[in-house]
């Protein structure tokens, strides 16, 4: 069978081909929206027309058969149109209120989790993990599944003070949005890379390996035509391994998960904020990482109990102070929490103002 003529540099199909008619007609004319339930909302146009959106969770890692099922639903209810959100949910849109209930019913019948709209937990932005990445210190999809099972009510039903964005990255490259998330998990190493001198010699460029290290822990080992690591300088970032595959850093016993919290990207009320470290290490305990899900629950509980309406996790912490956060959650404050790198100076408490805990 001969292949069709390949084309190059044509870019993606123009989005206009894919817009549902009610969207195309009212493009740029929306006036306001209302959240109708955890999984449904309506947007109202200047023209008076409305679009109803129904959102459902996906695990992001989808089989083609699953996509075909989404397509079938879209064909049945939405004229064959559908979209995905920036957090990997699937959205079905209809142009009349009467079309919402049947759509939701079908989704529920098929056991889809409808929800994620409004002040709730939406889907987890995450990464490849053991399913596909050589760099992973943990799995991403499994962690997401374990966490979302545990907090699913906040997706499908219960409200929170505001949206809580959860993210997972399987290594410090942080392909997810971990560094600015309300609650995020990141796979971390605790031990330095192991050097396979023979492979370094054959597969790696020594100067770029050396310069990849942010702490200058790596130096040449000319005798072996390889490199050596000053162990006490290594902070296990794995950047050398990204550059030189002969320096594997994965370590089944000591790889684990760090939890960072309080980040956001929206500009509402407070500026976008980086997440901060709250638990430096939890062992990898697949398949369901109970210590991790427990810690996430602790954070959520303290947030629900303490935050004012509209406060994001970081805004709540900002108000009660980090010492308040450690008090409310009971997490232990350790040496690892104290910055000793790029931002260290700015994190020291240069004030006599702190709260007793």
């Amino acid at each position: 069978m001969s292949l069709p003529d390949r084309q190059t540099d044509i870019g993606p199909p123009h989005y206009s081909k894919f817009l549902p008619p009610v969207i195309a007609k009212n493009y740029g004319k929306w006036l306001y929206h209302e959240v109708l339930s955890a999984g449904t909302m309506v947007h109202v146009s200047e023209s008076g027309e409305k679009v109803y959106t129904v959102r459902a969770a996906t695990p992001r890692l989808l089989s083609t058969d699953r996509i075909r099922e989404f397509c079938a639903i879209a064909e049945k209810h939405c004229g064959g149109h559908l979209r995905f959100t920036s957090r990997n949910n699937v959205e079905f849109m209809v142009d009349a209120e009467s079309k919402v209930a049947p759509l939701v019913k079908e989704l529920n019948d098929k056991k889809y989790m409808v929800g994620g709209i409004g002040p709730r937990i939406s889907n987890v932005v995450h990464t490849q993990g053991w399913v596909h990445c050589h760099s992973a210190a943990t799995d991403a999809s499994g962690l997401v599944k374990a966490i979302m099972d545990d907090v699913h009510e906040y997706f499908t039903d219960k409200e929170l003070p505001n949206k809580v964005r959860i993210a997972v990255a399987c290594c410090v490259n942080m392909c997810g949005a971990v560094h600015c998330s309300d609650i995020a998990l990141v796979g971390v190493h605790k031990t330095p890379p192991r050097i396979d001198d023979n492979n370094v010699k054959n597969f790696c460029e020594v100067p770029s390996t050396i310069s990849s290290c942010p702490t200058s822990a790596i130096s040449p080992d000319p005798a072996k035509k390889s490199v050596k690591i000053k162990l006490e300088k290594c902070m296990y970032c794995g950047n050398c391994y990204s550059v030189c595959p002969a320096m594997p850093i994965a370590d089944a016993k000591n790889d684990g998960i760090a939890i960072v919290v309080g980040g956001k990207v929206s500009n509402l009320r407070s500026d976008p904020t980086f997440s901060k470290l709250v638990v430096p290490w939890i062992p990898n305990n697949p398949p369901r990482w109970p210590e991790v899900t427990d810690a996430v629950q602790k954070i959520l509980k303290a947030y629900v109990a303490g935050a004012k309406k509209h406060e994001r996790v970081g805004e709540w912490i900002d108000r009660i102070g980090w010492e308040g956060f450690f008090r409310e959650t009971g997490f232990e404050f350790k040496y690892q929490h104290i910055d000793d790198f790029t931002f260290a100076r700015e994190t020291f408490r240069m004030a006599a103002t702190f709260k007793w805990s």
Partner: protein
Amino acid sequence: MSKKHDTPLLDELEKGPFPSFVTEMKMAAKHSDMSNDLLGHTELCYKERVTHWKHGGIVGVRGYGGGVIGRYSDIPDKFPGVAHFHTVRVNCPSGFYYTSAALKEMCDLWDQYGSGMTNVHGSTGDLVFLGTKTEHLEPFFAEISSRGWDLGGSGSALRTPSCCLGKSRCEWANIDTMAITNDITQHYQDEMHRPAFPYKFKFKIAGCPVDCIASIARADMSIIGTWKGPIRINQDEVQNYAKKMNIQAEIIDMCPTGCMAFDGKSMKIDNANCNRCMHCIAKMTKALRPGTEQGATLLLGSKAPIVTGALMSWVIVPFIKMEPPYEEFYDLIDKIWEWWDEHGKNRERIGELIERLSFPRFLKDVGLDPHPAMVKEPRRDPFFFWDESDIEK
């Protein structure tokens, strides 16, 4: 295909209400040997608590320097189906809208040439086809490109730009995010497909400061819609909100600039002091709307924490009209890239380069004037440089 591997650990992850990626892998495994072995391979990772993927080699399609991530198992003998398991990054349409016809066609092709597994979407925004062998890359590309699809970016190239859905369904969009994203993508096809940068470069476009695409955290250039002039107020709707919410506590007291007032009857905003954070608008969408002079703020530099800590993008152009043909915008981007090409080290993101060579120098070199909007605060130390022309001889 019939089940090849026992997966007791993964099976645990089919329990519970959230949709399971294991179920997806099992669905794909029904017609794909690759996915069947992926299940076994992943189970082993779970058991041993360690990844079994090797560093990917460079694979791809003819004429392209990116778009495919090479991936190989380190135990190919045990799992031949994933000996090669490359991912293909297909450039998503702006806004992530699809028709079932288009998606189904892609699914059929992927069942034919790949594992039947996908990521919808990858974190950057690509429609990621997860797992195929080297020899299938070329035919898969021929099939999809002939149907109007193209690859996204990887390596030291422009990465697939992505955006929030903007004007398509959101009342707050100040710029046409989807049109801009598509235009940038088309404008820079060469930069996307033939890696020639010091490192990766990402665009993300949000219609307003709510930033539903997280652009400020993960795009070398973040384009964020904004406005000048007064927030539009519908006082009747304010009255309606007053019946259902505590406007004082939820809005006035939470306005970060303290520039709002509500006397029970009408709402006043001191627009000169508003910083357009979007809180009041988002929580009172029927009553408040962005002003009418709309455009974007350009911010530069965000990236993940490797190697000296994460950066968020920061303001380099406070306000720019983003209207076709976007000349002023493209001129600036070209200048920025030129500067980065000239000075950037290998694997140095633009934000890191600016940090290394200094923000004032960047501004001078690309021809931007300093503006207080670019900084949260002026410098605190008394150490600053002068040019020859500033010196009395």
